[in-house]
């Protein structure tokens, strides 16, 4: 069958462009038809205001508006790229995101796989509901609880003391501890919520596949490896591509609640820097320049990871 398909494609290639367009529209008119409102929505709500990207090259003043604000060329970019802390900011942003990716990305998958193996429905439901809750705890409170856990005398602080054999003040005073705290607490807050999408993907796996594996004498791990994971692989890949395309983006809310001058060395990211530099003063042009720079890099990362994923797993965004 695949051979036949290839042939058709080849044939279509030889046809003139507009003939192919006509044919495509006739064949897939419904698919295009339902997409019209979606496309209109994207044009109106995303593309019409997109001229705003250009304020990165202006000294934008809300009062003067877009047209009357002065062009300043690359000044905002130069300001950002000539910053003595630039290297550290980029490095910290990347490191936090990489660690979050390496540890945080598989965590919900593992949780979903483990839950998938639970037979007791009541236990399963309880675990699901409770692990999903921390996602809803506001950041302020979550960070308050983190502080309590790592403060001198707090449970996590005690554990660290036990392994290192030395007394510590609050772990948030040590630059080396910041990344583990940030990443692990992120996992703690997001693991249950993140596992939902995988649980739903697992729900569509055909039970007959498991039965067949049973008959072949496959154990739990074999089934997990050969049936469950391949079935949810498209979902995994799509989310992985997304996360790879966000390696250079970061939020400042959690950081400003957890970091302090003792940990700037590892905690200061692009987002916290822009925040401290005066986001509140409405310095739109500078933030736009920083935003645009990281968006370009993020987009390239996404493009590459998409290509790689297409090669390896045949799953891709485009």
């Amino acid at each position, binding site marked *: 069958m695949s051979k036949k398909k290839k042939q058709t494609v080849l044939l279509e290639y030889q046809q003139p462009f507009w003939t192919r367009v006509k044919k495509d529209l006739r064949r897939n008119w419904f698919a*295009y038809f339902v997409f019209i409102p979606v496309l209109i929505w994207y044009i109106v709500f*995303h593309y019409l205001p997109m001229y705003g990207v250009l304020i990165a090259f202006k000294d934008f003043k809300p009062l003067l508006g877009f047209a009357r604000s002065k062009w300043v060329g690359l000044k905002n970019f130069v300001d950002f790229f000539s910053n003595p802390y630039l290297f550290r900011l980029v490095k910290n942003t990347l490191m936090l995101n990489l660690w979050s990716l390496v540890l945080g990305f598989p965590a919900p998958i593992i949780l979903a796989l483990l839950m998938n193996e639970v037979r007791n429905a009541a236990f399963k439901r309880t675990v699901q*509901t409770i692990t999903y809750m921390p996602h809803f705890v506001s950041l302020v409170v979550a960070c308050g609880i983190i502080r309590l856990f790592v403060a001198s005398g707090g449970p996590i602080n005690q554990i660290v003391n036990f392994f290192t054999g030395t007394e510590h003040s609050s772990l948030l005073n040590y630059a080396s501890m910041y990344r583990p705290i940030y990443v692990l607490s992120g996992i703690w807050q997001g*693991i249950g919520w993140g596992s939902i999408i995988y649980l739903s993907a697992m*729900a*569509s*796996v055909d039970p007959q596949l498991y039965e067949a594996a049973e008959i072949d004498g496959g154990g739990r791990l074999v089934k997990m490896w050969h049936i469950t994971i391949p079935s949810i692989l498209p979902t995994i890949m799509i989310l992985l591509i997304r996360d790879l395309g966000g390696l250079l983006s970061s939020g400042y809310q959690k950081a400003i609640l957890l970091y302090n001058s003792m940990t700037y060395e590892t905690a200061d990211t692009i987002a916290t820097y822009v925040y401290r530099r005066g986001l509140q003063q409405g310095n739109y042009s500078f933030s736009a320049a920083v935003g645009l720079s990281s968006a370009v890099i993020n987009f390239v990362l996404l493009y590459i990871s998409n290509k790689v994923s297409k090669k390896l797993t045949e799953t891709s965004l485009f």
Partner: protein
Amino acid sequence: MRGQNIRRVGRWTPSNIIFCIINYAVLGFLTLLCLYPILYIIFASFSDPERLIAHEGLLFKSLGFTLRGYAITFKDSSILIGYRNTLIYVVLGTALNMIMTIMGAFTLSRSGLMFKKVLMMVIIVTMFFGGGLIPWYLLMRQLKLYNNIWAMILPGAIGTWDMIILRTGFQSVPRDLEEAAIIDGGSQFTILKEVILPLSKPVLAVILLYYLVGHWNSWFNAMVLLDKREMYPLQLFLREILVSNSSSQTAVVESAELSEVEAYRELVKYCVIVVATAPILCIYPFIQKYFVRGVFVGSLKG
């Protein structure tokens, strides 16, 4: 029936038992870890404010018992107005979200569309590049999406990642089922309605949950695009209580009175969180039932 099948096949071999024990232990531990912050908030919300603020360290029971925090939170009718408005925005907004997202995901999940890659690019670019707040705001004003219910619904009609996730879900529907439907003379619409949607219930449930939670928690659009307080969603009222309780610190004058406030500020913070999140937490069990393995494939085939 099929569930029973699986259970019967699972044998109690030693390795299976060990796996089960470890699995239950890990999940149990994780559950406790995730449960603690919830308990902490609940304990704190009922605590005596003076004792709460003087307390350092973890909480394992409420410090005293008082409902005054909740009394302050509910002191006027705005919370109820907020609940009502949020409910309206959540229902209408999510309905529109689902329709638009399904339409978009359906098209993007079809194979053999000439312009699919272009369309995909058009959509993905918007995730990275945007005009920023002010051009967006001016557009909203021009579109008259200001001070009316559409301002809460239209600007967020599609979540791009949600659409992509749904597309991935649609793509995982076995091709042969679709082809069977085409052979039966079904149109594209029939395929969507009779094959794809029923088979994608789990992922639809997840997207639904994402949208529900998103609408429930959203406040920024409301803050920027709504003027009339009688239209405010719950989160905006709660934010007002939360933030105005904490921002008094910014002023240097009259510090004497502010210290008294601090204790209540703490307390109200927790009450507000309980009030704002309790309802949305109750939604999950309804979503959960769509995650039972194999039900849909089985029922369709059977």
